[in-house]
């Protein structure tokens, strides 16, 4: 056994305790500033937390890249479309006139909005890229209402931390934090490339979260729930994705 100098031992233990203290402080600060994702438990928690915290600090107000009209994909890919069920077919037969989106949770004026009401709100159009976690992508022009406008109309409480949204497809629900919910490019979209949003692409109504991967942009939206905690929904992991093995935060 070789000598370990006292100085070295002291320096090493000081460095180790500084690192441990630093990590504890970092964890406390992260919790304080809402930088811990709802699926942070488990073996992949440290990596997820680092990714979410760093990207959140880096991107709180940044705008997703927008493209020129000439860059719009001529052959966008809708991904596979499964049968959407009897309820959807009935609404589609009626031209989606009876499509409604419930707005509830931590809002002063809970209720529901018809497609016509949503289309009457001030709209925004933007040409952004949809990237799927699988690796493929396309660019399209999206027309819709900024989600933050709907949250304004409903009177979301300042304590709100997440907006949870559900599809007419059972078991497809997601949530985003307020940084994305209040982001000007986060749309409740009803138009694509100048026409009504086609059904394969999520028509009549889908969320568009351009700073996250495609699976956060849920198709066929039927409800928006404002909340300060995701614990009481599903398995408490934030959305259906972590329950199926995928990360809640999909900014990467």
């Amino acid at each position, binding site marked *: 056994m070789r000598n370990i100098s006292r100085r070295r031992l002291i320096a090493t233990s000081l460095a180790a305790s500084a690192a441990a203290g630093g990590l504890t402080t970092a964890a406390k600060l992260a919790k304080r500033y809402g930088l811990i994702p709802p699926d942070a438990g488990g073996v*992949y928690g440290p990596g997820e937390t680092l*990714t979410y915290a760093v990207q959140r600090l*880096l991107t709180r107000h940044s705008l997703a*890249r927008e493209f020129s009209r000439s860059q719009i994909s001529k052959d966008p890919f809708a991904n596979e479309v499964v049968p959407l069920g009897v309820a959807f077919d009935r609404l589609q037969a009626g031209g989606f006139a009876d499509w409604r989106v419930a707005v509830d949770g931590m809002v002063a004026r809970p209720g529901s909005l018809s497609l016509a009401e949503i289309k009457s709100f001030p709209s925004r159009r933007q040409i952004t890229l949809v990237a799927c*976690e*699988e690796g493929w992508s396309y660019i399209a022009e999206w027309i819709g209402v900024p989600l933050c406008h709907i949250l304004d109309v409903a009177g979301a409480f300042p304590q709100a931390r997440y907006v949870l949204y559900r599809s007419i497809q059972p078991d497809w629900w997601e949530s985003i934090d307020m940084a994305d919910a209040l982001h000007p490019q986060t749309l409740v979209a009803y138009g694509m490339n100048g026409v009504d949003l086609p059904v394969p692409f999520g028509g009549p109504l889908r969320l568009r979260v351009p700073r996250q991967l495609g699976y956060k942009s849920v198709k066929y939206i039927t409800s928006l729930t404002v909340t300060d905690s995701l614990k009481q929904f599903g398995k408490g992991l934030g959305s259906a994705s972590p329950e*199926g093995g995928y990360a809640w935060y999909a900014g*990467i």
Partner: protein
Amino acid sequence: MASCSITSLGSEVGRADTIGRMAESIAARISASAPAPRVVRPRHAVVVRATHWITSLAFFALLVTGVEILLSHPRFYWGEIGNVNTAPLFQLPIPSSRDTVPTGYDYVLPDQNGWSRYLHFQSAWVLVWTGLIYVVYGFLNGHFWRNLFPDRAELSLKGLSSALAQHLRFRWPGEEAQSYNAVQRLTYLLVIFVLFPLAVWTGVAMSPAVGSAIPSAVTVLGGQQSARTIHFFVSVLLAIFLLVHVVMVYVTGFRRRMMAMITGRTKGQA
């Protein structure tokens, strides 16, 4: 435990001539006029050994999960966008884990993307932090100057061609080789300062959130799909490096070199 042992150079020379010469040459690299007693460094310092093995684990995880993720869309494109409706730059002749991808195979592999993505990003964080520690250490401690930056003689055409010729003839310097030749030095520098940073950059450039904060990180690469394609080729180069590296360790003395990277000591050293 301790990263270096202090011994008298004289006793080393007395024990084994070759080791003594090695120590002298290392000592000469450290300082031209070092006073006795001189420091005989271990073959690899403790920081180098620790970061080497942590990086190895992280890289192995990245490679396996990277292949899993790739299986969900084994097509590559150039520019900003690409999907099954657009012409690929090339497509790998392998089956896919998605039935939406036309592969020519009549079966679809199971979807492993969820855990693969979780583990890929977690391993990437481990790799980035470990790499930063290693690079800061390498500059502060002199590791890069001592072991990796080639000197002028090695970089000359003659020095490079003779080192390369030795490599291509599978002629090794022998068991006593304690320093890297120019080909090794340049390869390690390429891996540390070009390939790994490029892998991290092209990986991060695929993130829509990072693209919103630093758009130029994507556009200078030619677009998001270009970033993905470069990421693939850089990963292939890193995988080739890993293969050659392991083969070279094996043929030039597996046990000895593994011990050097695990304990820091080689036979004959205290």
